[in-house]
């Protein structure tokens, strides 16, 4: 797996099975702050030196609180914002290097599922028109061909019979049906990568599981790589094989899902896991421990580890001065925290089950 300092060979044109589908290399998404409309006033470092690889058919989750940069990372991966620095390689090609045509090709390979299904669908377009748009832009000139593909994809997302939905408008559908349309739109060009931005957080609890199951099924049916972005660790397990935890623009912990959920190492991950609500009557009067303070400023991030002002396990003179590199305290479990400089240990404040 990727290590930040790793150099990589120039990728070959034909993707081999061993090659990752998507490689993010030292990605920085910085937004320039302007003074008086033209003067330079610094940068918002929304994503700062992030690297990872995604294999074909693999599902990963990126977890973090609001403002940690996961949306910026996602937008860069979707090609919506240009990174300040670093590269995003899809099947070995830099997605921004090929100009407009390259980006157009790349976009046909990526589906995007958004958080708010109602907002994600233009309210003045019928379902048929909504699903037709990506096909038109993808160059499918034949109307019948487009309609055939629309019917197919509606069946795939279990909106059947498709005829019942083609001429409806988004507001006539329930939240779950709307999200199925969003998924259908993401899938209509048969992408290889699906980016799902909190796909169930705006849905009723009763619908969430169904949508997650649907995504899971589509993923396995089409051997789809999925980047699942969420702030909610409780839905992650349904889905992903690996979890990346993001904090203040950096990925601070990477591990397989079960490994991370059962053996969290970074104090921030521990805090996140402790914050998961647990429907148990005995918890009603218990105050949950949450990390004190606010997420740090991304314009002037704290020196050293960015979590140190809120960290209970801070090592004075180390965490607040030096930025932690990635350690690998357990196999395939990487964490950027000075606690593991000497090897594995159970993080303070966490009761680890054996």
């Amino acid at each position, binding site marked *: 797996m990727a290590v930040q300092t790793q150099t990589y060979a120039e990728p070959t044109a034909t993707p081999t099975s061993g090659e990752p589908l998507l490689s993010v290399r030292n990605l920085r998404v910085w937004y320039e702050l302007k003074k008086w409309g033209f003067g330079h006033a610094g940068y918002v470092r929304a994503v700062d030196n992030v690297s990872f690889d995604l294999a074909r058919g693999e599902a990963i989750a990126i977890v973090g609180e609001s403002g940690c940069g996961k949306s910026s990372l996602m937008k860069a991966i979707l*090609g*919506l914002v240009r990174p300040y620095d670093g590269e995003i390689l899809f099947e070995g090609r830099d997605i921004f290097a090929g100009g407009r045509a390259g980006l157009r090709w790349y*976009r046909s390979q990526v589906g995007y599922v958004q958080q*708010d299904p109602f907002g*994600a669908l233009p309210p003045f*377009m019928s379902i048929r028109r909504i699903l037709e*748009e990506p096909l038109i832009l993808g160059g499918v000139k034949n109307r019948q061909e487009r309609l055939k593909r629309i019917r197919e994809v509606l069946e795939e997302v279990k909106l059947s019979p498709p005829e019942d939905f083609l001429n409806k408008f988004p507001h006539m559908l329930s939240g779950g049906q709307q999200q199925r349309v969003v998924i259908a739109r993401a899938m209509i060009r048969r992408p290889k990568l699906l980016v799902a931005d909190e796909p169930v957080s705006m849905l009723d609890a009763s619908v969430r599981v169904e949508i997650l199951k649907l995504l899971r099924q589509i993923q396995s049916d089409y051997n789809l790589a999925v980047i699942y972005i969420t702030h909610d660790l409780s839905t992650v397990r349904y889905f992903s094989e690996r979890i990346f935890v993001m904090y203040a623009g950096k990925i601070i912990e990477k591990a397989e899902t079960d490994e991370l959920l059962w053996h969290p190492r970074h104090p921030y991950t521990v805090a996140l896991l402790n914050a998961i609500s647990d429907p148990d009557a005995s918890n009603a009067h218990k105050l949950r421990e949450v990390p004190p303070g606010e997420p740090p400023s991304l314009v002037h991030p704290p020196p050293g580890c960015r979590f140190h002002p809120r960290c209970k396990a801070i090592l004075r003179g180390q965490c607040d001065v030096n930025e932690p590199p990635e350690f690998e305290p357990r196999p395939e479990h990487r964490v950027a925290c000075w606690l593991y400089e000497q090897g594995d240990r159970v993080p303070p404040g966490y009761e680890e089950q054996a």
Partner: protein
Amino acid sequence: MFRGALREISRYPSAIFGLLVIFALIAVSVYTVITLPYHEAIRLWRGGEEIWGDNPRLAWPAWINYFVKDKRPLTQKRTSQDPGVERHQEKVDEGLWVDDVVYTFEYTADTFPQELTVTLYSEYKTKAPYVSISIERPDGKVIRLANLAVEGGKRVYRLEQDEKLHRKLRLPEHVSTIVGVFAEDPFVEDPRPLKGTYVLRLEGSRFEEDSTLESKAVLYGTVYGWAGTDHLRRDLSIALLWGTPIALSFGLVAAVGTTVLTMIISAVGVWYGGWVDSLIQRITEVNLVLPVLPILIMIGVFYTRSLWAMLGIIILLSIFGAGIKTYRAIFLQVKAQPYIEAARAYGASDWRIILFYMVPRIIPTLIPSLVTLIPSFVFLEASLAVLGLGDPVLPTWGKVIDEARVNGALYQGLYYWMLEPSFLLMVTGIGFAMLGFSLDRIFNPRLREL
């Protein structure tokens, strides 16, 4: 959305009324353009005395007779070539041909005619034909009007200008000649016309074998057509009819032009942001403080008064209007919608997003304001005309009002002249306003609660 809106319109009586008015105006426009082609209308409106000469001057519309006790006369016109005209031609001597024509006029109105004219036409070589004109009243009294030589090929006899006859009839100063001829008794306080058959005799003498003598007699009434006439004897119905398509097209083109362009400029500014947006906003702010009407007056005075040039300038000045700010506020919200981001993610181009994703969102708020904007441009055109900046060629409602004003229609009691075009303007305004307000409630349901 639009099918639903149409169904909902039927629930608003005001919208139906507005639609009926608009359809009526459109029907009138279509009828006008088909039956009275543009060049024909211009000829009739700008033609000159030959075209209007037989119309009465400043005549009320004929339907006024339904509302007044004393019925007013219509114009009666006879020519020597009419079929059934009593005509007698005979050679009575060497070098003398008699050519008599008798015109009869049934007179039933309760008020006096405006004027009686006899026009004589002749073609001759050296000696002009000679005509003596007399009129026989229903009571048998014969009044000799004039003896004329038709010199120069055409002579016009106007009864009202015949001062000799005025003296001969010994009429008081304030009684006009026409009253002297047509009254039961012209010397009473309030003379009334004598009803019955008037016989106008033209006793002509020609002195050459191949000379001709033709004539036309017009007994001018004081009402005309359904719209009346103006000071130049022009039929106002031409201007009122042609004013309709002009007003509608002017209003529609101006309203649609400004709204659509404003919307697109605003959307472009919001979408691209940065200096594009700043530039558009600054232009708008400068333009907002520029006074439109004085600029239009200046252009009208110094450059051109063509309606279509004015239209272009109005659109230019209105594009960067307050609408830019309103639409910008809406577009800024629309731009932040997730579906815009989704469209970018599946590769929609900037223009596709502006036209297919942002603009449709604003159309529901746009249609009602567009409909209510149409009459305001119609009024603007009328205002320009009243300020004397109307199009010099086209007959428009505003021009009719302007001419009525300049000729003191209201002081002379010629209310129809000013009220007819004003009424049409008002009806247009009400029709569009009623439809627009109803559409506003249909498309923007939140207003219903207010």
